[in-house]
């Protein structure tokens, strides 16, 4: 095939979108939109890398902070949520061997997150509403700096995303427990108990012969556990959004409400409690579940120490609900007891729960050696390494003494946040994409293994490099969420910028490879209606 033919029809014309079921198409739409928003976040990130080297005159400070606000939100909601939710809406019914409870609800989730993300991104671009994702009170309602209309539209966009994630949670839990029409009645309570990890925990205290068989696969249990956190953080963010909206709407009608009516520290505790359910609960749990899924699919073996893995998921539920105070170690009015118990001790438990997931995944892989170093396997190992680097970095900053000199520095956002998200989370998601590509496309053939190999190394080195150089600058005192005008940390920022270029090159190689795999006609075909049965996940072979 010529280059033009491959570009239009895909590699060896192996991808035929008309053979896709509605669920396959919907999942692929989630993936496409998730990757587009990843591109948004990557370009925004690169703009900020350049700005850290030399502030660009073309971009004013208000615009810069608008980008700084949009970047993590687009990355988390527009990209990660889309990829994770899309994959789970397919995998939960696939692993439970029954149709998704509501295809319509899943479509609503897709549109809510797609539109909601675009609304707040565009609003931030046009109005420069920039309270950052932390929204520290009373900044989001500071109308000397931000226009209330711009803020109201921004918050509405976030609320639409939250609505989409709430619909996802309902769909996941109902899919786990419901009985499909015409099927034998399924034990809803037992399914729920197993999904939440109670059965696994109880099995640890039972004799081997008396242990209950699991009726919910481990990755589904992880999805269910993460969905509990997602439900809670959705509630918190929605409630906070409504609170901020009340101030904005009142301002639009000419009434200025007193910002002191809300206690800034109480608000900070409340907000971080909810937000940390994404960072420390949802991400770690969903990632652990994805590791287990990938390890079992790659090896074809059962997960090592499965009951412990399930019990750890349940324990993480307690951890993620009580861990938020590590974000307030530099708040002197925060009670010391909360700082020590929640901020330090419970946070240290994340080292244990994530360490368990790390070990269990490696042990499962080891049990199947020798393995071929496929794309899913190498990206999975990259993801594991990312969290092995990022979690201890986070544990270090969650210390009363060290936080005094690390809080809000580039250390936090470099070796911890960006290594966790770019290397840990994104490489895990890439692993899932490479693994599920044939299943979701009914046998599309990857265009170039060389490009996939370049994608792996450029992403791994770029991600670790960027985190490392940001971290070095942070240890030298460089703050995040600010602008340096005199090239104070120039060598580190140049190296971090070059690492960012490597990350962009990795993304470009990956996107090119995927486009050449499915072809432009195939990519458009994903968005065309499927005439096949909605209850069928994959067509019969």
């Amino acid at each position, binding site marked *: 095939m010529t280059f033009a033919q491959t570009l239009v029809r895909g590699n060896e014309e192996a991808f035929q979108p008309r053979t896709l079921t509605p669920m396959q198409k919907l999942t692929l739409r989630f993936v496409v939109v998730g990757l587009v928003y990843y591109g948004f976040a990557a370009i925004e990130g690169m703009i900020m890398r350049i700005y850290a080297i030399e502030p660009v005159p073309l971009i004013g400070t208000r615009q810069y*902070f608008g980008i700084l606000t949009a970047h993590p939100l687009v990355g988390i909601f527009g990209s990660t949520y889309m990829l994770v939710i899309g994959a789970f809406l397919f995998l939960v019914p696939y692993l439970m061997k029954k149709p998704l409870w509501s295809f319509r609800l899943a479509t609503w989730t897709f549109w809510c997150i797609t539109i909601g993300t675009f609304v707040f991104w565009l609003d931030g671009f046009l109005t420069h509403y*920039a*309270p950052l994702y932390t929204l*520290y*009170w*009373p*900044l989001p309602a*500071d109308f000397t*700096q*931000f226009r209330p209309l711009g803020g109201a539209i921004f918050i509405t966009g976030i609320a639409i995303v939250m609505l989409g994630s709430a619909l996802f949670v309902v769909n996941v839990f109902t899919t786990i427990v419901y009985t499909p029409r015409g099927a034998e009645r399924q034990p809803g309570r037992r399914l729920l108990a197993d999904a939440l990890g109670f059965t696994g925990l109880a099995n640890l205290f039972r004799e081997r012969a008396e242990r209950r068989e699991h009726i919910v696969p481990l990755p589904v249990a992880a999805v269910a556990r993460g969905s509990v956190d997602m439900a809670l953080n959705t509630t918190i963010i929605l409630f906070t959004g409504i609170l901020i909206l009340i101030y904005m709407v009142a301002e639009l009608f000419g009434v200025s409400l007193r910002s*002191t009516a809300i206690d*800034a*520290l109480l608000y900070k505790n409340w907000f971080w409690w909810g937000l940390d359910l994404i960072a420390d609960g949802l991400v770690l749990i969903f990632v652990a579940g994805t590791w287990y899924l990938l390890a079992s699919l790659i090896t074809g073996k059962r997960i*090592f120490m499965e009951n*412990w893995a399930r019990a750890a998921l349940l324990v993480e539920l307690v951890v993620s609900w009580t861990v938020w105070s590590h974000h307030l170690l*530099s*708040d*002197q*009015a925060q009670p010391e007891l909360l700082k*020590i118990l929640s901020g*330090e*001790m419970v946070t*240290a*438990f994340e*080292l*244990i729960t994530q*360490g*368990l997931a790390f*070990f*269990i995944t490696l*042990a499962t*892989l*080891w049990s*199947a*050696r*020798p*393995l071929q*170093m496929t794309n899913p396997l190498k990206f999975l*190992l990259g993801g594991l390494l990312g969290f*092995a680097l990022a979690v*201890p*970095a986070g*544990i*270090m900053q969650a*210390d*009363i*003494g*060290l936080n*005094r*000199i690390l*809080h*809000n520095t580039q250390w936090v956002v470099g070796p911890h946040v960006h290594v966790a998200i770019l290397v840990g989370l994104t490489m895990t998601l890439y692993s899932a994409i490479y693994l599920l590509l044939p299943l979701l496309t009914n046998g599309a053939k990857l265009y170039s293994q060389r490009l996939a190999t370049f994608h792996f190394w450029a992403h791994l080195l770029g991600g670790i490099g960027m985190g*490392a150089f940001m*971290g070095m600058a942070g*240890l*030298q*005192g460089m*703050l995040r*969420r600010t602008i340096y005008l*005199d090239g104070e940390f120039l060598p580190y920022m140049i190296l971090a910028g070059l690492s960012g270029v490597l990350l962009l090159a990795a993304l470009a190689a990956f996107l090119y490879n995927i486009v050449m795999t499915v072809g432009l006609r195939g990519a458009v075909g994903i968005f065309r209606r499927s005439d096949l049965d909605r209850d069928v996940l994959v067509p019969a072979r």
Partner: protein
Amino acid sequence: MVDSSTVLWGQTLVYTLYALVIISVVGWFAYRLTRPGPAGVASKLFFGFVAFLVITGVSLHIVTYNTIPWSPLDVHRGETQADKVFEIVVADHEFRLPAERLEIDCGDRVLFDVSSQDLTYGFGLFRPDDSMVFQMQVVPQHRNDLLWEFGENGVYSIRSTEYSGPQGYAMIVQDAVRVSGCPGGCEPCRRCRPRPDRG
């Protein structure tokens, strides 16, 4: 008191070593995974690893509390007598200091009592080379106090360490704090020489 830069060097060393070790371990694992060989993992190894994680997680904070000198000082600042108290107000993206330059004698335990009249800010002290001495959050409607013992001569700048809107990045007061009188210290020395005004 041990300077915060010493602690940061210690952290840099520890984390760099850890990063090199874990990268090597995963690299070795990836290589061995593709080779034939014994595939079993003993449960003893698993439980040993769990024990290692528990010990590491808990002991980290015990070790830092006993080695980082400002940790106990911070936790017990309510019961500790300060040699000097500076009351600082932040409003409209501006630090309002009690004097043009805050003078501190070597060895003084100084309480920085910072209050915000509008937004959430940060309060950090920085050396002339832009490295951080310490920082804290400044939350409105609450007391934000930090006790610090100075054991080295120097001139420091104050900077907001929390985002407070697009105007916040300019919240810097150059050479706002001076520590003097430490034995062996030079004044002014290379380390504490004031930087030229950036206007």
